[in-house]
């Protein structure tokens, strides 16, 4: 048990649950506007990390939980597909699919469908023992052959079959996936990939029935068939997804609090995008739990409801500065932009204590490989920003104070998927940065893009922006490969919106991914982070932070690793 204070609100962290402590609302509010934060930054950070890590192991189940009932869950975003892709699909997938292995928040890989595994001395062969008598909800056996079929599909060159994200992670490494017998799975690698087990624990590798997969990508998107504690009954687009209990469930991960079928009969996974409506549904008891407590209601929610929170790993929401073209092709301009705003204060004000600041744009503060000293990188320093811009030749001024060079104004077009990848509170952070950057002569133009356009890449060409905020969830440093892999052989890494791809960076990341030695691997990952931050290729803002507020009668909802998925498998209603 520990006290994790943040933003003037004290939370009692009790075995993974962040419960509200007797903190007055007014106290919380005053601390938000205080010029002298009541809590030292280090303690704030420690509190957040503690809150995240403490959720690694689910709290013990009640001796005799009540069975039955329907959980009415109000979620924020509706994904375009119920399988893989965006993390919003991953949250639903966690209810209906199993993975080969599970990962705790402190980085341990524990059994799930694989009960045990061995790794060869050269780290190139992984052999898994598969849990017997597990079936997908369509009756297909979940054995090694089914997993081989899944891998073959994920890594297929056919775009209708391939799982793009799964391929990004392991496509280069895996040479063969075979099933020596129905309960033995063997994965052979071309070269060691020390992140393999971690990435296999992510929702990108959720196991689906090969029988259902053969129906095609549309069917997989609409009604994917897994082996999880619930199955997708129906997706009412724009409204909800109905998830029914799988009465034959027998494959819970080691992180779960019980084995066997889920306690509740059904989950109605409602899409309530509007913050007021979503939180209002909890207040009026129209929802039993909601996702993403709005910042303005954070203090109130902690007084009224059971609130749990987890800071997701991977990359935080950060501004990716387009290093391929002016003005951010000049590192001095990028560094100036990083110094020009009080990002910590902007995040604190916008999120009102619900979400922490994440200065290191290359890694979330909850990722175990993060460089701690980068938590204070690029502080607000207007003098330094002005000096750097002067050195870079941006010495002219327009009548309204915008800097110019060769007659061109210092304009930063900041593209963002508002209300989607960036919440309304996140957009407020961008507005504050926009205002503060003007003091140094930046003209920041906010350009919101609709969610569908964002995912379709509309208006996101290399010449369309100078900065883009985005996140990519992951457990930790395995994300570096995704974000910073350089373009090669016709491959253009769309996830590297910074277009920052020095050979030295990729050398560090590639070496780290294959390094056996834990300490050396950590050092390589951290050197990569320093290289990214020193070059101001990204400017950190805040990590994706998952919060779930639930009615007191709903027990044992928890947030899973590695990417903070809500878990309703162990949940039950109090008698």
């Amino acid at each position: 048990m520990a006290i994790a204070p943040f933003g003037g609100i004290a939370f009692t962290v009790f075995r993974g649950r962040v419960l509200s402590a007797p903190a007055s609302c007014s106290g919380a509010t005053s601390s938000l506007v205080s010029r002298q934060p009541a809590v030292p930054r280090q303690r704030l950070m420690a509190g957040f990390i503690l809150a995240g890590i403490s959720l690694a192991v689910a709290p013990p189940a009640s001796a005799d939980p009540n069975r039955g009932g329907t959980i009415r869950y109000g979620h924020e975003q509706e994904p375009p597909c119920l399988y893989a892709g965006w993390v919003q699909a991953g949250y639903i997938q966690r209810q209906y699919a199993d993975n080969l292995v599970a990962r705790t928040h402190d980085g341990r890989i524990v059994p799930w469908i694989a009960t045990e595994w061995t790794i060869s001395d050269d780290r190139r062969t992984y052999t898994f023992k598969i849990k017997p008598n597990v079936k997908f909800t369509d009756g297909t056996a979940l054995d090694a052959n089914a997993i081989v079929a899944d891998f073959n599909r994920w890594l297929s060159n056919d775009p209708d079959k391939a799982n793009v994200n799964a391929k990004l992670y392991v496509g280069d490494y895996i040479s063969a996936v075979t099933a020596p017998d129905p309960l033995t799975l063997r994965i052979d690698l071309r070269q060691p990939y020390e992140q393999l087990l971690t990435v296999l624990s992510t929702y990108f590798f959720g196991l689906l029935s090969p029988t259902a997969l053969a129906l095609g990508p549309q069917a997989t998107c609409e009604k994917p068939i897994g082996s999880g504690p619930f199955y997708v009954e129906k997706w009412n687009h724009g409204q909800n997804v109905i998830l029914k209990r799988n009465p034959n469930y027998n494959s819970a991960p080691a992180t779960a609090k019980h084995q066997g079928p889920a306690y509740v009969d059904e989950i109605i996974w409602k899409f309530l995008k509007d913050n007021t409506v979503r939180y209002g549904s909890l207040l009026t008891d129209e929802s039993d739990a909601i996702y993403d407590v709005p910042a303005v209601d954070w203090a109130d929610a902690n007084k009224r409801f059971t609130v749990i929170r987890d800071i997701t790993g991977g990359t935080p929401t950060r501004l990716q500065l387009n290093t391929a073209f002016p003005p951010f092709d000049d590192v001095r301009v990028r560094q100036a932009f990083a110094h020009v705003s009080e990002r910590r204060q902007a995040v604190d004000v916008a999120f009102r204590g619900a979400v922490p600041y994440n200065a290191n744009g290359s890694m979330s503060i909850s990722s175990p490989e993060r460089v701690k000293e980068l938590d204070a990188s690029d502080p607000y320093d207007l003098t330094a920003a002005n000096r750097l811009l002067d050195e870079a030749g941006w010495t002219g001024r327009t009548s309204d104070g915008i800097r110019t060079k060769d007659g061109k104004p210092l304009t930063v077009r900041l593209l963002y998927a508002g209300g989607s990848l960036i919440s309304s509170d996140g957009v407020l952070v961008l507005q504050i940065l926009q205002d503060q950057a003007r003091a140094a002569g930046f003209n920041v133009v906010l350009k919101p893009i609709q969610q569908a356009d964002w995912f379709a890449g509309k208006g996101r060409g290399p010449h369309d922006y100078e900065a883009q905020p985005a996140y990519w969830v992951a457990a930790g440093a395995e994300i570096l490969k995704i974000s910073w892999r350089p373009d090669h052989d016709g491959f253009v890494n769309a996830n590297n919106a910074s277009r920052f791809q020095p050979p030295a960076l990729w050398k560090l990341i590639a070496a780290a991914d294959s390094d056996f030695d834990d300490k050396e691997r950590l050092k390589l990952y951290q050197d990569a982070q320093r290289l990214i931050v020193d070059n101001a290729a990204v400017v950190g803002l805040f990590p994706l932070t998952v919060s779930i507020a639930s009615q007191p009668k709903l027990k044992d909802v928890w947030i899973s690793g590695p990417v903070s998925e809500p878990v309703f498998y162990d949940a039950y209603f109090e008698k």
Partner: protein
Amino acid sequence: MSSTSTITGTRLGFSGDFRRRLTYVVTFVTSIPVSVYVAAFILGGFVLAALAPGVLRTHDPFRTDLFSTLQAPSLSHIFGTDQSGRDVFSRVVQGTAQSMAIGVGATTLSMSIALTLGIAAGLGGRMADSLISRFLEVMFAFPNLFLALLFVTIFDATTATLIVAVGVGTAPGYARMIRGQFLAVRRAGYVEAATALGHSWQRIVRQHIFPNAMRPLVVMITLGLGQSIVWASGLAFLGLGVAPPSPEWGALLDAGRDYVVNAWWLEVMPGFAIIVFALSVTVIGQHLQDRLEGRFHPV
């Protein structure tokens, strides 16, 4: 107008003429409802805010103050402050020009489209009427908001896009009204009389049909102004408005909706501006309608 011609047509002495004119002016002025004066005064304030916002605003509408966020209305911030400490009154004032531009622009566009279609249908003969009417019916099959949403979704949400979206979205309704008006006037007795007298069709259209059919449009334009602003605000509230930090009124409503329970002034104050503006133009529009339709006799 007939009263004026009667007075000017009468031979009177200077003092009598002046007294009669003065009496007319006083009667005219005092006969106009107070509500119209109030509306005109308020509208004048909005025009001032649009043309010279610096005269009215009390703070920099774009300057954030992270130590003064979400402050309730007070003497220092009469409309309160928003989530990033910006003065809401100054933002409402600053947003007037953009909101009015959308109102005027969208109304102008919708009236232009509506006039073209309405006149062509009303005066163009049976074939043209049939074609245009079917086209308008197809347009009516889509909710007006859907048309506007479609437009904003396809193109970027800018002030110009909003003008076009709202203008196109509202045009079919106006077009049908104009068509009906022209058809009604075309069949009026005085048009038949002019035809019987042998006047040319161009002369009949110019002297009889057009002035009489267009008269109600003056009212529609004033009503359309307020309606367009409400429409644009609605689109902005749905997240399809102009990009932040624009203080366009609808964008202000959209930005404040997460705080509707905790900071009522973020929704109430811009909403109040929209309502007052729409009410003002409506009151003036209705008064003009009464005058033009002869229901208002000042003297």
